[in-house]
């Protein structure tokens, strides 16, 4: 069976029935988006690794509890969000973009340059833009930052964002709009 054509919910059902390969497919789809979400809200890589593991362990162990009519991404990110919030409450940590890039303290400019940018100038510009937007993201209110990251990094719909954050559709949409407008403004200021 082609896992790429199978929905997240179907894969989850297969995994709950004992098909370990279905989990591999699910993990492959959602590893990086979830990782970014957790990383953006943890502030440091070590904590993000721990939370990443906690979330996926929970997925594996509670697969049998997953309702077939539920959205897998909503379920996944709700668990991740709850753990992030709990970690914040316990550690009183704050989000920081310092030392996040590549896990090796490598400046964003160098990373973008290694990605094969067309020209050094473009790479530099992109790196500078990226640095700016990441810094701007950090200055957003938490709810707007969360909504933006869920959409931009994880590709979730407004409805899903509303479900995960426990808000209404309109509230989630408003937060997204405000976040995007603020980032635009900050980018213009940077430019």
């Amino acid at each position, binding site marked *: 069976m082609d896992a790429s054509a199978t929905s997240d919910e179907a894969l989850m059902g297969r995994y709950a029935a004992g098909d*370990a390969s279905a989990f591999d497919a699910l993990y492959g789809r959602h590893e990086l988006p979830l990782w970014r979400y957790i990383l953006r809200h943890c502030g440091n890589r070590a904590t993000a690794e721990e939370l990443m593991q906690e979330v996926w362990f929970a997925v594996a162990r509670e697969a049998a509890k997953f309702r077939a009519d539920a959205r897998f991404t909503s379920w996944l990110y709700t668990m991740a969000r709850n753990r992030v919030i709990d970690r914040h409450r316990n550690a009183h940590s704050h989000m920081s973009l310092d030392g996040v890039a590549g896990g090796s303290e490598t400046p964003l400019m160098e990373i973008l340059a290694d990605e094969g940018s067309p020209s050094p100038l473009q790479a530099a510009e992109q790196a500078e833009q990226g640095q700016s*937007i990441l810094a701007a993201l950090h200055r957003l209110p938490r709810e707007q930052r969360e909504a933006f990251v869920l*959409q931009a990094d994880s590709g979730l719909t407004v409805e899903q964002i509303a479900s995960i954050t426990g808000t209404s559709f309109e509230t989630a949409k408003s937060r997204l709009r405000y976040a995007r407008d603020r980032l635009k403004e900050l980018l213009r200021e940077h430019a």
Partner: protein
Amino acid sequence: MNTPDDEPVDEVTSVYRRASDAEAGSPAFATRAAILAEARAAALRRTPAANHSLYAWRAVAGIAVLGVAVLLWRQTNRNVTPELTVETRTPPVLEPDLAATPEPVAEAGRSAAQADRTAEAPQLAAAPPQASADVAAVAESTAKVEREESKSAARERDESPAVASVSAAAPAESALQRARSDAAPAVAAGALRQAATDYQGLLQREFPEVWNAGTPPRTVWLVMDVGGRILRKGVLSDADTLASVANQPSGAWTVVQVKTASGSSLQLAVMQVD
């Protein structure tokens, strides 16, 4: 994969995604490996419930069969194992009614076979003279022969002021010993009645006045030889004991409870000597 909203990706989002892809990287290999390993382990634990319960039931059934087999094996071994013969020591059952029709007096030289049969319960009253237990008659010939072998031991037992019991009699009396150590119940009532009658006959013959007395004395005694010839006899007063009887040779007294013609009970002490 679930599709996002159908909105054009604006510049902000694209810039951010580019920066995020480059900057966030990915989880460490160890984290990824741990996650996938846990997922496989959880999947194994979540093997279809039917198979799991099937295996569980199979395991339970196997244990039950094994348990039954062990029980059967133990039961079989228990049956095969030779059991020790436990000789219960029970007091002889005495014939309560000795007032049967007197039968011919038994000869002193009774056969050993009869002695064995009647020796099951020669537990004579070792109690004080006032003991009312009836005692089965002892095979006299057998006891007589064995008494010769341990006269000294019998003498010690005769020290007791109480009436000597068969159990305290000479160890030489194998019949008495068997009665003492044998756990078998008393001889048949018929044998007891026979023995009791013999003593009754003896009492009637040697002590006719006692036999006919309405109130007989408590104890009468006689000493006879192995041939049954009466050597000495007498009536034991309340103040006397068998041990105090004058000129009594060493030996063991056989004391039996017999009834007179009037139905009164008294003790007849008999000693056989060479």
